[in-house]
């Protein structure tokens, strides 16, 4: 599993950036879930997930996004997805995720949207 999926975390202007790479499937989703849990436990609710290096996602990975969205928005934050490759985006698309999640082209866009909205939910749900 070591080379199959990686998460790198960093802080950018009060926003927590999680850069994920490799594949997010039933095998690696638990590691991603632990990372999100960690952020919530540390009180970080303004999350940007940089998907530049994400090569694949299956329902187990999608499920992690799905299960934390409500809690994060309730706490005044959001989980925004940035730089999703077309091959991966089409999977989000099949399930209508783009209507429910804030998915933007670049990490900067995601940060900008936090700036505009403060921590508030963007009212799409």
């Amino acid at each position: 599993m070591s080379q199959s999926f990686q998460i790198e975390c960093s802080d950018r202007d009060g926003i927590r950036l999680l850069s994920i790479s490799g594949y997010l499937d039933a095998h690696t989703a638990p590691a991603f879930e632990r990372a999100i849990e960690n952020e919530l436990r540390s009180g970080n609710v303004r999350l940007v997930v940089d998907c530049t290096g994400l090569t694949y996602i299956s329902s187990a990975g999608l499920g992690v996004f799905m299960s934390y969205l409500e809690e994060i928005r309730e706490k005044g934050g959001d989980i925004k997805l940035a730089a999703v490759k077309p091959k991966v985006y089409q999977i989000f698309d099949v399930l209508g995720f783009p209507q429910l999640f804030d998915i933007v082209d670049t990490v900067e866009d995601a940060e900008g949207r936090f700036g505009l909205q403060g921590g508030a939910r963007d009212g799409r749900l």
Partner: protein
Amino acid sequence: MDAFERTFALHVPSSTGNLAMIRDFVASIGAKAGFDDNEVARITLAVDEACANVIEHAYSLDETRQVTIRATLDSQDLSFEIVDNGRGFEPSQVSEDDVAELIRQRKSGGLGMRLIRAVMDDVKYQITPGEKNELRMVKHIKRG
């Protein structure tokens, strides 16, 4: 592509750690069938979801069980059969809440079968619990 039918099969221990191998297997066959990269990625997803269900639900993560994926390729269709002799279930009783509702309920699961149905042209379960549970799914090959 040639006229005759070609069959491929892969057997791996029932572990999520083997899903990547399963995806490589499916992606190779998808490319042989002439699907483009995005289509190959979707077909690969469908088989991954089906196998993840066998590994997690049918065999409850028991790595001593085996997952078998059979693929058949002819000039019209690429078909996959995933067979298990595990727990079994009633596919018609699986509820399909919409994703917004699943999010409200903070669910992390319940997306797999709908992804399979969204991607493949034909999806059939034949369940005989404890004996043999078979999922057969077909993707038509569109010729240009």
